[in-house]
């Protein structure tokens, strides 16, 4: 813990870099993953190929993935963001599909019967009801990304991985511990915050959408 107390500024700076990397990556994964998940519920035959591909990507070790990507995306943030987004995709796509599949058919039938358009059904009924499940996927992805992002330090983009790698090189357990503890706390905090958000947003989003 000594390092944490002696160099709060440095730890704060690295934490900020870490959060940024994870946030950008997960945001990208959501931007792609949620529409893809919705698409799968409309075109069911896409499920096998898409979930299969995302599943295979998920099994590639992170170091290997960085190594494979560096020739194309270079040493830097792009590589890390693309890799983390790819890892996050599986949980987000799969949970989007599961969430929409879980919407009560009677509610959808009623929505259709009262004259909601396809768009209105998606935004007023399906996505809000699927939201807790989708956010559970985002939680899984975020927690995993916070861990995997520590490896990103090898590509030279900073983040809490720097503390761990520096500690390993200089045999400084204090640094390794500081990096590990802060990254774990970060993961817990994200897990907790996203769970809270899920319960809170569901109704408001649907109603706001309905007003339009």
């Amino acid at each position, binding site marked *: 813990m000594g390092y944490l107390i002696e160099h709060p500024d440095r730890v704060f700076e690295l934490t900020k870099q870490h959060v940024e990397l994870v946030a950008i990556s997960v945001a990208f994964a959501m931007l792609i993953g949620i529409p893809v998940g919705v698409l799968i519920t409309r075109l069911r035959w896409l499920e096998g190929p898409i979930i299969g591909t995302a599943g295979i990507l998920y099994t590639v070790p992170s170091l290997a993935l960085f190594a494979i990507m560096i020739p194309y995306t270079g040493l830097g943030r792009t590589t890390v963001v693309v890799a983390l987004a790819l890892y996050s995709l599986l949980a987000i796509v799969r949970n989007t599909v599961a969430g929409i599949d879980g919407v*009560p058919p*009677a*509610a959808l*039938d*009623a*929505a*259709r*019967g*009262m*004259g*909601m*358009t396809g768009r*209105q059904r998606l935004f007023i*009924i399906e996505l*809000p*009801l699927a939201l807790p499940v989708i956010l559970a996927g985002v939680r899984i992805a975020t927690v995993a990304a916070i861990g995997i992002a520590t490896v990103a330090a090898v590509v030279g983009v900073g983040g809490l991985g720097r503390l761990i790698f520096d500690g390993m090189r200089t045999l400084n357990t204090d640094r390794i511990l500081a990096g590990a503890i802060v990254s774990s706390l970060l993961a817990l905090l994200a897990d907790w915050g996203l769970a809270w958000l899920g319960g809170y947003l*569901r*109704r408001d989003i*649907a*109603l706001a959408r*309905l*007003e339009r």
Partner: protein
Amino acid sequence: MITLEGVSKVFTSHGQQVCAVDDVSFDVAEGELVVLIGPSGSGKTTTMRMINRLETISSGRIMVNGRDLRSLDVVELRRGIGYVIQQGGLFPHFTVADNVSVVPRLLGWSGDRRRQRAHELLDLVGLPPDRFADRYPRQLSGGQQQRVGVARALAADPPIILMDEPFGAVDPITRKQLQRELRRIQAAVQKTIVFVTHDIGEAFLLGDRIVLMSDGRVVQDATPADLLRHPADPFVTAFIGEDRGVRSLQFTLLGEIAEPGPADTRANGVALPGSLTIIEAARELGKRGPGAGAGFWISDEEDQPTGYLSYQRFAAVLGDTIAGDHTAEHASEGTDGIPH
């Protein structure tokens, strides 16, 4: 208001063709409540869902207000038709008030108007808004959820309402209560209603007309009284069941069984309106106690005597009707050969 002309629906499932609805025709007049009844799988739901185009018509056509359904915009059509489904189909993430206000919101009503309307409807279906408006569906019993479903269908005041076994999921006592409420509501708002059920008691209680279906076809389309008196075939008789005679009592009016009376007794004796059912008449006579003479007069709306029934004849009709022997009607048609 709604006319089905030779409507059929063929589903293709697993390469097999299933004719769910087969050449069905019937009308629903404005302000009328028509009950679709039949065994499970007889095509009631499919018939209903073709009216709001949740299912496409395979052949034949449906007219609403004289216009072919297919020429109408589907979203607009549905917004003009309230739809209540068996499972309630409430939106679990909306409160009761928000559920009721969905169509008004889609139609762009102001917040005040929506709230007022939701409260009005919750009162109408017997859910005091101050207690129920802010609850979520999961905090309601099955019967309460179905009431919200009914309120939601009425929200934007659509002229037509489709109800698919709306009280199917509730206990018998609550169901009776909901049925009575629907009758009260219908008397107040006079909607054009198509009501699906497989409960024959419900059909007789609610229907202005009953369309009995079997295997996708209409077996009989008649008023409750006619269905009881002239069942089209043994299937109808079997479907109506053992209670046919007792039920008939509620649909046979004094005016229908009145006979020409002896002219000289006109001056004295009891007179009852011809619009009373046999049951109501029996109750009324019991209340009045013994009257003068051997029978009673039957009067029309202007209190003019139009016919006569001896107590003996009244008792005979009562007994015959309960026994399911419809001598009374046949007698007035002169087909049974029993001397009067």
